[in-house]
């Protein structure tokens, strides 16, 4: 039987069937799920259990024929433990959790991300490309240098085929233009006369800057941003470790994708996040 999504349950064990170094300190994995699952929606995440080590939220980069793709950047002992896993090893998966991106029709889709934030944007790019009506897709990616650009070849190939517009930049100019991805985004918005939706994922500070930029343009009709860069324990709305102020929305179930209207109400967006103790920490 094919399931719509996985039940909210204990981790189910999936076998790593493919592993590759994607870019600097980042590995991607394909994991075979032991059950048939229909699809994952872009923006949703899983809780990844590295047995005996740690469990943490990870964005879904792809799902085809019950094979799940994730990309893991080195961010601490838990991610390093995953980097040591090889083809044939088992890891636990809970999910799929969270509310996805909801792209409307008839707009410019502006996807902008950095680092680990590129994983949900990869799945979103794929979904938008598979739409029967051709979509106007722009992907903006920036990194410190060429070796840190995630999915570079994948995105560049689709750009070369004319399926997306890939706006790529690096801080040191080693690939694309030199500077930040917001430079091209701003330029696009200044010149565009048609409505756009911005989708962003990555470090919260970056997203706040994009949000503030997007608000200046009347042609940006919505912004959808993933706040998954927060501490989570349960993933399904019980522990409230990831709750935001003052609304009490939990990123894991009320998000992780929030639109402009909701982001305006989250007072800690880009300001502070809560540590595992519940203490506030400035972003």
């Amino acid at each position, binding site marked *: 039987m094919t399931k719509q999504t996985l039940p909210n349950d204990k981790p189910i064990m999936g076998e790593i069937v493919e592993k590759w170094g994607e870019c600097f300190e980042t590995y991607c994995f394909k994991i075979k799920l032991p059950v048939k699952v229909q699809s994952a929606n872009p923006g949703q995440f899983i809780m990844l259990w590295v047995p005996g080590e740690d*469990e943490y939220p990870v964005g879904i980069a792809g799902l085809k024929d019950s094979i799940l793709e994730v990309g893991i950047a080195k961010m601490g002992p838990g991610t390093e433990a995953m980097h040591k896993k090889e083809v044939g090893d088992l890891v636990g998966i809970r999910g799929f959790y969270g509310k996805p991106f909801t792209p409307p029709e008839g707009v410019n889709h502006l996807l902008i991300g950095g680092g680990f934030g590129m994983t949900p944007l990869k799945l979103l790019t794929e979904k938008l490309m598979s739409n029967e009506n051709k979509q106007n897709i722009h992907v903006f990616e920036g990194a410190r240098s060429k070796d840190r650009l995630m999915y570079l070849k994948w995105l560049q190939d689709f750009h070369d085929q004319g399926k997306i517009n890939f706006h790529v930049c690096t801080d040191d100019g080693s690939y694309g233009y030199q500077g930040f991805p917001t430079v091209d985004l701003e330029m696009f918005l200044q010149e565009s006369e048609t409505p756009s939706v911005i989708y962003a994922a990555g470090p919260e500070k970056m997203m706040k800057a994009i949000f503030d930029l997007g608000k200046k343009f009347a042609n940006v009709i919505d912004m959808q941003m993933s706040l998954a860069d927060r501490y989570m324990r349960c993933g399904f709305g*019980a522990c409230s470790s990831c709750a935001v102020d003052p609304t009490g929305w*939990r990123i894991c179930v009320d998000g992780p994708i929030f639109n402009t209207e909701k982001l305006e109400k989250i007072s800690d967006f880009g300001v502070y996040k809560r540590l*595992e103790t*519940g203490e506030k920490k400035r972003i």
Partner: protein
Amino acid sequence: MSLATKIGNITIRNPIILASGVLGTTYSTLNRMYEAGLGAVITKSISSKSRAGNPNPSVFALNDIRSVISSVGLANPGYQIFREDIEILMKNSTPTIVSIFGENKEEFIEVLDGLKDLPVLAFELNISYLNTEKGGTQIGTDPDLVYEIVKELREKTRIPLWVKLTPNVSDIIEIASAAVQGGCDALVAINTLKAMVIDIHTKQPILGYKKGGLSGAAIKPVGIRYVYDLYEHFGNKIPLLGVGGIFRGEDIIEYLLAGASAVEIGTSLGVAYPENMVRFFQMKIKKYMKEQQFDSIGEITGGAHR
């Protein structure tokens, strides 16, 4: 017909209280849950210093038994920082019970001293937490320690003290009696049951702490039994709060009939749409009261003993 209920000398607008440990890490979720229609809310257990808690995985669902296993390990920022959150709750007039935790008597006293000037509804003493090396259930299984701690805290405040009991004892009446003799204002039964899950493929316990506590539908009959036993022994002498596995309005009524004056709900509110759950609970209680011609919650309490 009124849903209001009395627990000792305090009255809340309905008998449904958010249990400690779920949706209680920040003021924002607590406010949200009160605004959803609960009678009162209970914070996560607060200790003297900040605690990072146990390694993950520390909470996951057990779908087939509609339950959750957890070993969060009392992650909290410590009372000095959490005070800020409580003050916001007070400003919002959210009836708040603060759950406090100590590894020993001294820590309980320090936390109580640090918060007792705030107009909270009550303090709930967590002497029944499982997933910690010190304190918690190590205290809650020792009647002498329970008596001593409750008595000392009693001398320091007139704010109601509720004592949350562990089901992991052979004689709950002995522990409950010690708490009552110490001077507590209400008994809360039950905290989680000892539990564990092992992955058969990797042969590893799944929880980062290896062992955990079980909450959810699986433990409801256990909770009902303990509340029934406590009411059988104490009658109306001490108010009881029933907690454990409430998923439906019927479960609330069952706890009231067993002897509870109010209930605490955790696991079934830790879901995507807790507001809907609160609405369902209220609707069901009202329907039952109308059908059975009850005018107040107090009339239902202990009904199974008559």
